């Protein structure tokens, strides 16, 4: 820890020193989104500055001390596959690992861990502070520096710091202010400005300039956190013990083991609410202003108040989760509440296991501004502001995993944007050559078909696609059911899906990770080919594998792959019977089994996936005036298109209410206009 402090003071600079310096990327906010953004931007080679209020809160888990879960676990795996920090941090800080949904099929397995808050912070900080090209400063960003660009658009050129530090220039700015954008905290009837208890409020200026200067549409959301209970005051004998997996599975593809030894893991406990809890909620409604307001709250992470009000007369689960190896606190999952502290205590004590509980810090509610994400491109750049990227809860998502995942994408594009940026600048130097180069660079920076992750490729793609094409009405949380190609986008193959292109095309993956992924990919291919070409008669198989239920009727030869599709046949079994063929692949036995079972289904899905990809590859100009377009479109369709402004033909096709005819007319119009301008341009070219 001491060493870390020294490192901090060495690496982090005083804000006044960095002013006037021009960075490639400035990241505002040091939460999960901010740290991943800064790290990813650095990895792709950008000179990056991370501005945070307090360096010591970098990597802080402000709400629940856990990572992953069903749906979210996939995101952690994908962030890790793109060489993000989160998965490795989880492996370092985890104190209770389990794979949820183990009985429901590998496609929906949810790797999850309880974390030690201190360790998580320690890992993130140590990683960040040793990164080359990254500078971290403490400070508060007051405003964005924006200049006017073409056709009513803006261009961000830096940030203005509070406290007279001055301006910091940047090609691109990533805002990851989480719940701090005009955040207010609610406990009982008291309201105070802020985004997290115990930290100064911030970003009022940012919120204003996003809304007033840039004209972005903001919405308001709310969330909350439960009170923290002192561990020693809990009667665990009255709760159900919940043990972790005996053998912890690491999140990261580069880790074989977790930092925590299997036997050192901590248990969780499960208990339930009682009718008394409901009574306290109802009696305290008049002193609970958060719950009375109708700002959109999450349906799936509701406060205990809204749970008992929406589903009265039921028992609700309360998970008692450890906050860390040495922490004396317990986090009661499911008990987020906003009533006055004395009532919070009364409510908790209605639960038998908590009958003499004491609270360290009370629960509270947060309301904050978010930027309606339909105003973003799929690469999370604000449509009307060049160089400005948003990520995390500011886009209406919830959770660490969602925030970190978004950022992987952001930073990639930040840098792509940068490369284009230079050329765009030179465009102003009047030469036609420059102009054309600029146009092409702009095209690259704006559309980048190989870069935007499709919803057919990853959960990250699904999430971003949902956000920017449908918007949000409540904090967006990842579920496996949101991914229509769930059986292809599995936690086990995230490295095959993302690590290889992450290195080859994007450059955000280290070469060690890449070569390992390459090796894995090669071995899996070989193993599957070996399985497919190894065929025996059912008679022969029956003799070799006595447990397997092989139907007698089958007269054709059965391949090893088909055998693996039997529930009771494992790759280890095949390897033990035919060691000369299969034993060499034993390292991957679980992954091979999963691939064999899912391959036929994934093949079926491929057609549909490719259809979606084709439609997504047809881009629509961002500046069409749909309302006055001289094309036969119904007013209804015009309004929908104008409101949503889809980026691609695919996105437009998915909009409810847009007819196929409208799409054909639209494309036709755009193509004709293009030809006219093109011919005019050629004309001027030669005169």
């Amino acid at each position, binding site marked *: 820890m001491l060493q870390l402090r020294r490192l901090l003071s060495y690496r982090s600079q005083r804000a006044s020193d960095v002013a006037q310096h021009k960075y490639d990327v400035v990241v505002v906010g040091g939460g999960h989104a901010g740290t991943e953004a800064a790290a990813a931007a650095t990895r792709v080679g950008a000179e990056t500055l991370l501005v945070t209020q307090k360096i010591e809160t970098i990597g802080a888990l402000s709400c629940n001390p856990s990572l992953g879960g*069903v749906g979210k676990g996939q995101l952690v795996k994908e962030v890790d596959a793109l060489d993000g920090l989160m998965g490795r941090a989880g492996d370092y800080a985890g104190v209770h690992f389990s794979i949820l949904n183990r009985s429901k099929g590998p496609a929906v397995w949810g790797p999850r861990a309880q974390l030690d808050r201190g360790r998580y912070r320690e890992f993130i900080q140590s990683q960040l502070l040793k990164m080359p090209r990254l500078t971290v400063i403490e400070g508060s960003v007051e405003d964005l520096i924006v200049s006017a660009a073409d056709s009513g658009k803006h261009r961000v050129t830096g940030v203005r710091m509070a406290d007279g530090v001055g301006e910091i220039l940047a090609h691109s700015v990533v805002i990851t202010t989480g719940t701090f954008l005009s955040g207010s905290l609610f406990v009982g009837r008291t309201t105070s400005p802020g985004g997290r208890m115990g930290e100064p409020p911030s970003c009022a200026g940012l919120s204003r300039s996003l809304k007033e200067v840039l004209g972005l549409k903001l919405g308001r959301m709310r969330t909350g956190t439960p009170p923290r209970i002192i561990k020693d005051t809990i009667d665990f004998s009255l709760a159900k013990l919940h043990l972790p997996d005996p053998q912890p599975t690491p999140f990261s593809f580069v880790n074989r083991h977790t930092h925590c030894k299997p036997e050192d893991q901590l248990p969780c406990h499960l208990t339930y609410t009682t009718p008394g809890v409901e009574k306290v909620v109802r009696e305290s409604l008049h002193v609970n202003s958060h719950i009375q307001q109708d700002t959109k709250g999450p349906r799936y992470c509701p406060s205990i108040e809204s749970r008992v009000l929406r589903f009265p007369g039921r028992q609700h689960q309360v998970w008692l989760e450890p906050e860390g190896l040495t922490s004396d606190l317990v986090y009661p*999952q499911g008990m987020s509440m906003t009533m006055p502290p004395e009532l919070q205590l009364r409510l908790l004590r209605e639960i038998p296991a908590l009958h003499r509980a004491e609270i360290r810090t009370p629960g509270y509610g947060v309301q904050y501004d978010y930027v309606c994400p339909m105003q973003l491109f799929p690469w999370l750049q604000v449509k009307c502001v060049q160089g400005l990227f948003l990520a995390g809860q500011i886009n209406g998502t919830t959770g660490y995993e969602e925030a970190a995942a978004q950022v992987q994408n952001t930073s990639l594009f930040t840098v792509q944007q940068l490369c284009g940026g230079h050329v765009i600048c030179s465009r102003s130097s009047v030469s036609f050559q420059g102009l054309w180069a600029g146009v092409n660079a702009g095209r690259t920076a704006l559309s980048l078909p190989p870069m935007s992750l*499709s919803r057919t490729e990853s959960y990250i793609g699904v999430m971003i696609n949902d956000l920017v094409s449908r918007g949000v009405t409540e904090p967006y949380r990842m579920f496996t059911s949101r991914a229509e190609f769930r059986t292809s*986008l599995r936690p086990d193959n995230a490295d095959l*899906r993302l690590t290889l292109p992450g290195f080859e095309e994007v450059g955000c993956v280290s070469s060690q990770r890449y070569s390992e992924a390459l090796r894995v990919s090669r071995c899996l291919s070989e193993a599957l080919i070996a399985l497919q070409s190894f065929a025996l008669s059912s008679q022969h198989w029956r003799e070799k594998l006595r447990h397997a239920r092989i139907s007698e009727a089958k007269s054709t030869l059965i391949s090893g792959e088909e055998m693996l599709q039997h529930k009771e046949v494992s790759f280890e079994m095949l390897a033990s019977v035919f060691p000369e063929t299969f034993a060499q692949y034993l390292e991957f036995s679980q992954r091979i089994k999963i691939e064999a079972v899912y391959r036929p289904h994934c093949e079926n899905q491929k057609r549909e996936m490719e259809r979606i*990809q084709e439609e997504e590859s*047809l881009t629509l100009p961002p*500046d069409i005036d749909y309302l006055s377009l001289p094309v036969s479109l119904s007013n209804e369709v015009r309004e929908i298109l104008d409101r949503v402004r889809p980026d691609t033909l695919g996105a437009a096709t998915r909009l409810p209410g847009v007819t196929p005819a409208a799409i054909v007319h639209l494309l036709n119009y*755009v193509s004709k206009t293009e030809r006219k301008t093109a011919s005019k341009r050629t004309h001027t070219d030669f005169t």
Partner: protein
Amino acid sequence: MALAGCWRIALYKNVTRPRVYLRCPVVFGRACPVRPVCSRPAPGFEDTIFALSSGRGRCGVAVVRVSGPDATGAVRALTGLKRALIPRTALLRNITHPASKELLDRGLVLWFPGPHSFTGEDSAEFHIHGGPAVINGVLQALGSLPGLRPAEAGEFTRRAFHAGKLDLTEVEGLGDLIHAETEAQRRQALRQMAGDLGRLYNDWSQHLKHCLAHVEAFIDFSEGELIEDGVLNQVDTAVSKLQVEIQTHLSDERRGERLRSGVHVVIAGSTNAGKSSLFNLLCQRPAAIVSPIAGTTRDVVETPLDIGGFPVLLSDTAGLRETDDSVEREGVQRALKRVEVADLTLVVVDSTQLPQEPRMVPGFLNDYLNNVLPKKMEQGHVQQCLLIINKSDLLPNEHMSIIQRALSDAFTAAAVSILSCSTGAGLTDFLKMLQERVKTMCADPLVGSPSLTQTRHRTNLQKSIEALSQYHKYRDVDLALAAEGLRLGLTCLGRITGKVGTEEILDVIFRDFCIGK
């Protein structure tokens, strides 16, 4: 402006040469490492689609188009061609159903190998006769082949567009066409939606959506939240019930059958009433032997007919009477059986056998009907028969008009038509009546303008049932794959009733369960 320009360029390039811009070697999303990664979906990974490409409704020639990797297979399966297909050459072939080997039509087959085809894929065209039964039969046959599915609206154009075959100005010309198509479809869909059929399909969709939502809830939330274990058992029952319902619906759906194989019209009555004369009159040739000897017709004689443009399969049967002749007895048995499965029975009465007293005639006719028609389905069946009083020329005109008056005053269980097969008197009225009947039987207002939607429905329902069985198969092994089955089933139903999105499923989840985490 410059920025706008760059977008147009992007679009223009994408549109005219999309291949270049389709994501290059994206290893993203390649779940299986074995498959070679390619920049374009190889043709083998596309569905093969088919549709009636000429106008709907009756016409001389109809064109059914097939496009996709399995187009060759489809041509071979329907025509039995073994040798190599000759590109762009019309070939006259018998077109048969691949499973039943039933002859559907004799028509022209054209083969357009990709990339030199409208869609850029392997394509084929069947030029067949334009009757609804033929068209339906061919569409049905194509739908039964693996890998083939009915095309979505505008899908041929879309494929052509993606393959870079169509310039946008060409698409413009097609735009109106697509527009008309979807408009018509919408109108048609709306009309169906208002009816029972739409309600039924919608109902199934709702049920299935519910099932899927519950499975999804169980997958996404059961760990650490309160999702009761019983949820899956409920889904099991609901899915099985749905499968049975859809299956039943598919198997007793008579209207589609009628359009495909014709309305079954059977001529029945006692011996020597003139059934075979009526039969010959209707098919305008001496197809059945006519003689004054009772019991001339022994077996069932069949002929397909076109009545007012609708397909009819007309059968002449043996006269009904008690007999000791074993051959004739078999004939009577067959006649009765045929009446049982008939869509419409023409019950023929010899006018000279009518009671002398006109007041007695209605009662006599009702008894006669009861004798001819099968006992068990009297009520339902009575509406599907016409009574024909034949040989009107053998009675004096005055007597005939008295009988007619008596009939119009009294109640008879079926509409009555008086005619003479030998003179042709009353034939026009009778034909009008028959045509009216056949028409209502084929074109039910519920189903609207016909066949194609029907076939689409049928194929999609069939696929939906198959998908649902995947649920049962994987329910205990891998819930993700089981849910995949339900999702697929829902998509198939959704092609009929409208799509179901993820958000809707989440809505059900959050309505039914308290998700607290």
